[in-house]
């Protein structure tokens, strides 16, 4: 008989190894699925994991696109991971992402067609503030009235979506858009456009910000008192209270930071890759980032890698659709498997597997 024995401490060794195992298990199970769909499994897996990086036609275009796709995920996930570590669950990053985009884009569009170099910095600031303010709503409600931040932040996503629909058809609508919804395109507004910093690399300000956020989070968690408090609150809430951690401050800090980073992600996206505020500008980054945060073990470096891996499966999945005719749903299944195996493999880090000859059941 096999039975599980809880480890006193989660195993560091297995915690590090399980993401790798999960990816391998996903490749095997996914390969089986592709085979059942009548596609060559090895070719499909090669297309998803290898071609975006090294294919002679697609590689030069896809490699920078990996950064573009991963940057918002990483930026949001780093912020979320701080709260998740402390047991503060901001599920509404999608809403904060939208609000950051609306506020940032709004500031930029208000000054159209100015050429001032101050416009873009002002937009960045407004984007961060927009996301921060949206996250402060669940934050303040929680510390003041004890509401559940999971529900409030999640519900505010739908409010933000409706605001987005409203401004794309009203306040921020392109006056030259012939009545169609959607703002001006930032491509035609150079002072406010989040352009590539180095041509052909995909590196825009959002990518730079994502890297900076990873470094800051790393320093915060390993070298700073606040980071220690975050970790302590999550791992030993009682001890944290005795150690004098101020829960109100921590809640507001974690929600505020994750909101501001999500807002920044939204602003960099709307002013760059996406280019305009549209009704369905948000495409689920705020939710996908939750997966990225856990896939990366809530660790900044882990999140960096997880974000890149996620981006790889997206872009690889697109190439697999294009070149092999795989259905889009199969790609989503494949990504779902990755998450499933990751969580399932967690058993290994929390439990020891014992093989007993005598059945005890």
């Amino acid at each position, binding site marked *: 008989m096999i039975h599980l024995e809880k480890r006193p401490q989660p195993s560091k060794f297995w915690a590090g190894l399980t993401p790798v195992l999960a990816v391998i298990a996903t490749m095997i199970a996914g390969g089986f699925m592709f085979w059942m769909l009548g596609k060559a499994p090895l070719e499909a897996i090669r297309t998803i994991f290898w071609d975006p990086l090294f294919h002679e*036609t*697609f590689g030069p*275009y*896809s490699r920078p*696109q990996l950064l*573009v*796709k991963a940057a918002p995920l990483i930026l949001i996930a780093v912020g979320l991971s701080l709260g998740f570590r402390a047991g503060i669950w901001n599920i509404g990053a999608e809403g904060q992402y939208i609000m950051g985009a609306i506020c940032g884009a709004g500031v930029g569009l208000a000054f159209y067609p100015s050429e001032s170099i101050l416009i873009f910095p002002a937009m960045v600031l407004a984007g961060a503030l927009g996301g921060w303010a949206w996250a402060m709503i669940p934050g303040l409600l929680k510390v003041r009235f004890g509401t559940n931040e999971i529900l409030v932040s999640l519900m505010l996503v739908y409010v933000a*979506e*409706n605001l987005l*629909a*409203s*401004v794309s*058809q*009203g*306040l921020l609508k392109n006056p030259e858009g*012939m*009545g*169609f*919804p959607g703002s001006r*395109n930032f*491509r035609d507004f150079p002072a406010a456009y989040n352009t590539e910093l180095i041509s052909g690399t995909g590196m825009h300000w959002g990518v730079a910000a994502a890297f900076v956020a990873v470094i800051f989070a790393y320093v915060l968690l390993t070298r700073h008192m606040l980071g220690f408090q975050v970790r302590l609150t999550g791992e030993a809430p009682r001890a944290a209270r005795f150690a004098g951690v101020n829960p109100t401050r921590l809640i507001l800090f974690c929600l505020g930071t994750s909101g501001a980073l999500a807002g920044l992600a939204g602003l960099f*996206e709307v002013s*760059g*890759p*996406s*280019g*305009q505020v*549209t*009704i*369905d*500008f*948000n*495409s*689920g980054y705020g939710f996908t980032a939750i997966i990225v945060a856990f896939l990366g073990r809530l660790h900044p470096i882990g999140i960096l890698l997880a974000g890149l891996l996620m981006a790889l499966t997206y*872009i690889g999945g*697109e*190439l697999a*659709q*294009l*070149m092999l*005719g795989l*259905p*889009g*749903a199969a790609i989503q299944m494949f990504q779902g498997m990755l998450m499933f195996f990751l969580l399932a493999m967690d058993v290994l880090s929390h439990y020891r597997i014992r093989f007993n000859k005598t059945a005890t059941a």
Partner: protein
Amino acid sequence: MRAVKTLLAGVALAAGLAGAAQAQDKTKVGFIFVGPVGDGGWTYEHNQGRLAVEEEFGDSVETIYQESVPEGADAERAITQMALAGADLIFTTSFGYMDATVAVAEKFPDIKFEHATGYKTAPNVSVYSARFYEGRAVQGHIAGKMTKSNVIGYIASFPIPEVIRGINSAYIHAKKVNPDVQFKIIWAYTWFDPAKEADAAKALIEQGADVILQHTDSTAPQAAAQEAGNIITFGQASDMSDYAPMPRVSSIIDNWAPYYIARTKAVMDGTWESVSTWDGIGSGMVGIGEITDAVPADVKAEAEALRDALGSGEYHAFTGPLNKQDGSAWLAEGETADDGTLAGMNFYVEGIEGEIPSN
């Protein structure tokens, strides 16, 4: 020209460049879809058009597609990858791909692009759309005749001109045959979301609607109406005949196949030019699905006569006298709407209650 190309291909083949030569010989047609090909509505019909292209040209074309492409930042990447994959002609089949299509087209001047339902053209970008509002007129007529509660529910997607045109056209023709008719409109803010669409249908039925019109692409409202009983619906984008004869009594069918075949042919012949196409019932781009026996024979005959009059051009769906919602005059007696106004339509006609969101 084609012969020369084939000859060259033969030479290349002999030179051992088999792969490259073959790839060049086939015309590659790409499609970007906003929903899954199995949505049963909008994307389903575009995919039928793709399959018709394959059928028509057999081995001389290869089609590729990507489904469920979001209309944000991902669209530009998806289109670029398709261009890199060697497509000669790319159809981007949703309004939200407009700017992305134009941006990619700038980078690939030798590739032809066709954007559905937009208005931005370029030397290598055409736009095409269908006059769905003609089909809405037929629906409105049947709906006005069939409703007993005089409440008609309308599941709208996004408040863009195309959707507003449809609401206006359906309302005008329902009102014409039933002056007491009232429209209840729910904005779903989605093109395809079965759960949301079913909720909207149920809410409308609870508010007394016994006819449901939808401008969203799933069959969920049909299922909700079937469950409620005694409600009639119309198939959207696709025939949705699984729900006939009740609740689905007719449908608007998007028939893209002739256009896709013609444009592919133009690329093959080297005669492709940037055009703006807006076809209706007349050319077959908009089809009216069979009107079932749930509709009385006289109503059916009237609806078919209306369809034929729209198709022949003898009647225009927006013919005056018509006022705008605020009571101001829009079209005088006998005057018909011009395409420019229709393309950018952002107002309701007189009689419709409620406001277009944020207008």
